[in-house]
């Protein structure tokens, strides 16, 4: 097997090893299935409840993507503003950081008071959790533009819009795509938290009901569904990243650069 094949197989092998360890721990310590079900029981539950899990999984995916879309849009706009205007940076950044320090789970009951139980609080929670990394990364892309480059443009008579469009946005694209990979996973976390606390559908709701019935294998089956959706979305954005910002990746990364 050559190196590329090994690299392609590696994540599957790791996942398999992880499942085997999980199974071993359950068997060796005789753990009851309402405490920790074995992976076989979890996958059995996944199969038995495949239709409700699919329906609720898709609901969670939709909610997550809606929150994520808002996060990307507002994160991008705010990131560009924070990164290119000093005044916006100094006036808004402390507020943003303070806001991000608030535990979002604690906000869900408030959101329910405002918007009622259902999808809207979940979308907002997903948005709140995931938009901060987008802002910070895009702003970083803008803030780290070489000052000489801006001088070159300024003495050509470039407007601020020129600098944002010609330099700022392309320059911050790698940062932006890196943040999308973080944001999409955080978005799932936000959705599921809101669904557990105050949902009437979605994977989080399934988990809440399953755990109150001591159907722990189903809880784990639901966790597997979220995990797989997260990895899937991550992979999509990783693909988009290499597609759009190939210029920022010269070779095979640090390992290849050093190890040859």
């Amino acid at each position, binding site marked *: 097997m050559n190196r590329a094949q090994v690299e392609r197989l590696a994540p599957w092998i790791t996942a398999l090893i992880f499942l085997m360890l999980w199974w071993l721990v359950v068997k060796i310590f005789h753990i009851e299935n309402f405490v920790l079900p074995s992976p076989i029981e979890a996958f059995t539950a996944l199969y038995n409840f495949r239709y409700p899990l699919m329906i609720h999984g898709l609901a969670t995916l939709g909610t997550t993507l809606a929150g994520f879309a808002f996060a990307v849009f507002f994160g991008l706009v705010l990131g560009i503003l924070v990164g290119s205007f000093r005044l916006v940076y100094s006036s808004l950044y402390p507020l943003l950081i303070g806001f991000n320090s608030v535990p979002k789970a604690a906000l869900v009951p408030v959101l329910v008071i405002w918007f009622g139980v259902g999808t809207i609080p979940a979308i907002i929670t997903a948005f709140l959790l995931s938009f901060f990394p987008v802002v910070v990364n895009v702003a970083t892309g803008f803030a780290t533009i*070489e000052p*000489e*480059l801006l*001088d*070159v*443009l*300024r*003495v*050509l*008579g*470039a407007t601020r819009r*020129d600098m944002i469009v*010609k*330099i700022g946005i*392309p*320059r911050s*694209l790698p940062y932006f795509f890196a943040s999308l990979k973080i944001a999409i996973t955080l978005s799932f976390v936000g959705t599921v938290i809101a669904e557990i606390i105050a949902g009437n559908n979605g994977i989080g709701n399934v988990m809440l009901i399953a755990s109150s019935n001591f159907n722990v294998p189903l809880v784990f089956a639901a966790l597997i569904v979220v995990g797989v959706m997260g990895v899937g979305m991550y992979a999509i954005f990783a693909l988009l990243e290499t597609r759009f*910002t190939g*210029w*920022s990746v*010269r070779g095979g990364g640090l390992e290849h650069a050093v190890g040859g």
Partner: protein
Amino acid sequence: MNFIEIADIDLIYGDRSGVDKGTATLALSKAHLSVGRNEFIALVGPSGCGKSTLLKLVSGLVKSSQGSVRVGGEEVTKPLKNVGMAFQNATLLPWRNIRDNVLLPLEIVEPYRSEPKSELKRARADELLGTVGLLEFGDRMPWQLSGGMQQRAQLCRALIHSPSILLLDEPFAALDAFTREELWGVLQSLWMHRKCTVILVTHELREAVFLSETVHIMCARPGRVIASRPIPLPRPRTLDMTFQADFVDLVHECRHHISLGKTL
């Protein structure tokens, strides 16, 4: 009156009124400089003497605390338009190939800006790249080029829009000696063929004497021009000339001025 006229410039860096009062430094004091139209001058001096600051004053990127900066008879109050600049780092855009990097100014400077992206512009970039020996490299990405080639590309970007002023801030400082001397020749022929006013900031005296019509020597703390030495050597100058007595004498004379400046 000269094309560029800098008179009685004082420039203070840092905050003079706020909390950081202690950080204020006098970067330039009573600085004078005049440059004729289409003249090639060099600014030399010890590091920290305000060479780069003087360059930024000419372009309008920084404002002086006192004194006047005139370009073409007009007071400079905001960044000039249509100036070419090049630095020690090539600062090419890594997401554009070399040709598109060179074409960047044409997307910003009028009248080219309003014109559509055309074969004409492309040909213009290729012609310029050809004069610096980069014709086949237009489609390459910046990181695929050596440091010297990136600097050639940067010079092309600084000249594509035919600026009346070209400002060079130690453009060859990061290159090895052979590449640097090769690029002296490239820059000289660029200047001889497309006349424009060039201000070259450098700490390399041989470079200054080789390239310029006048070498202006600056001293540090506070920075100002203490001597101006016309270089009467014929053009085009060759690397062989740098080993001849008159060239070496000029370099020595400049060095003498710099050491005088240190003891002032």
